[in-house]
């Protein structure tokens, strides 16, 4: 699992590549949660290179959603492959997380 942070305007973009499994979830938790729990923050996860998510990955994402709601921040997930999008829908996470097809257009629209 690779996590590459970058900045796009007021947004922090974390580009995720590989598998969001147990070990990857711990890395993402350490990278993502402090940003959202320290105050209102805007974080976008670029998931276009993400292959797979386990339950522990889903749990980190749900926890992150809870944190951003509590602190008035923004969190979006962009560029999920169709297979991964199905995966999120089966888990019901599409009803909770903000999923967008494309990072650039989503950030442009949010600006």
């Amino acid at each position: 699992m690779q996590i590459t942070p970058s900045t796009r305007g007021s947004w922090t973009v974390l580009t995720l590549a590989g598998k969001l499994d147990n070990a990857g979830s711990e890395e993402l938790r350490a990278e993502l949660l402090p940003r959202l729990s320290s105050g209102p923050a805007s974080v976008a996860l670029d998931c276009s290179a993400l292959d797979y998510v386990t339950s522990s990955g889903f749990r980190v994402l749900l926890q992150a959603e809870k944190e951003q709601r509590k602190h008035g921040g923004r969190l979006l997930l962009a560029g999920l492959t169709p297979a991964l999008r199905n995966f999120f829908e089966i888990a019901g996470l599409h009803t909770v997380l903000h999923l967008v097809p494309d990072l650039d257009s989503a950030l442009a629209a949010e600006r």
Partner: protein
Amino acid sequence: MSELAALFLAGLALFFHGVSGIRTHLQGLTSRRLRRQLAAWSRRPLLAGAGGFLFGAVTQSSTAVAFILTSLVSGGLMSVAHALPIVAWANLGTVPLVFFASLNAHLAFLYLLGVAGLALAFDLGPARLRPALSALFHVGLLFLGLQLMKEAFAPLPSFEGFRELAAFIQGSALATFVAGALLRVLVQSSSAIAVIAIALAHGGLLSLDQAAMMMFGTGAGVGLSIFLLSSNLRGVPRQIALYQALINGVSGLALCTLYYVEHYSGAPLVLSLSAALAPSPDSPVRLAYAFLFLQSTAVLAALVGSRPAAAWLARLSPPTDEQDLSRPRFISNEALADPDSALELADKEQVALLAQLPAQLDTLRQPAAAVPPAVRHRAAQTVAAEIHAYLRELAGQSPDAQASARLLALEQRHALVVSLTDTIHDFTAALARLRGPGSASAPLLDSLLESLDTLLLTALDTTRASDPDDLALLLRLTADRGDLMERLRRQLLASETALDHAQKSDLFYVTGLFERAVWLLRQFALAQQALANPAAVTQT
């Protein structure tokens, strides 16, 4: 001779049918009450002894008592250390039958058989007394069988073959000791063999000394029997079985030794004491005393050694994974006196049961390292049954309105947790069948697995903190996804034409189970809401 053999066979059959009938009908009458009472008594040595004696008398088999206690220990109602003395005293509970059999009271037992049999045949008396009447009828059958056997033995001394046999074993007490041990392996009831030994002595086939040695042989026979039969036992049942073997083996061998010491030294020991208590040289009561001494020695051995034995047995045969998982962690009989505490414990036990379900799914990720799913499921069913019985017990205590509302909510949630347990087990088994290497449906199956795990863990979150946001989240995550699942199934079937019918059928089955689990988790969220405000449930 063939007529005598038929008489003996008929008597033997009636005797064993009687033993089995007494056990069946008295257990039906008192089983649940006796189990609960035993669990309560097990912490008080005197009451534990009385309970073990009573249980032994009812079942006429200390092995049956050991088996029942195993279920109580596995169910967390008592510890092994508390169960062992009860097993020991159950041995003594089998003695009264032998005393009854030694008395010449066949006329009384014939009346008993007649009255109880007619009452049963013509349905006389209240229905609640039928188990007791059936038990009495079987007591009558047992003694009728014994009488038939005695009649079969009576003419034996006049037969040439018998005289030859008697001459062959003449004076050989050791032969009857070995015969008693071997018979115990076959018959599985020491009191039954003791009664047969009395009948053989009465018929003149054995001397009183030989009949006594046959009884002592049953002690060694219990040890031999358990050695032969317990190889498939593990953990707690093996501990209790070995304990039975140990105390009975010690008592059998001790009394055999005392017999020979008395025989060769002339010192007044067991046989002299029996003779002093029943002076008539032909009295079968003398043999009943010998059986009493055998079983008392087993109890004595237990009283001396049960504490170190419990520690030794725990090391020798530690509880298995299934026994560990089958033990409730929170509910206790003592808490039933305070409904609020009991409800709190039942709540925690339900949550602990739910918390086992992600581990069930985890067996799919680590099939080699994990406890097998079938073992986990059996253990979960045991705990679920204990929780159900506990909630029933609470319901029977006429709880006040507040406790009643919470109990109702817990009962509803329990039904859901039980259904979830079964559904997750079936889902795990079906998924294990489908997930072969290179399986075309692997991505879908993996997503079902990870999704269900996520939902289960989210459901557990709702039980640990009373955050309304967690409940709202679970309700959103468990919204109906029937259309989505149908679309995914169709897509997969269209793209994977290589699937055979069985694979397609399994695929439909596993996705159906997934949808059912999601629906149950949604109902669980609603039940959690009800538990957060139980009064609202009873008002609506």
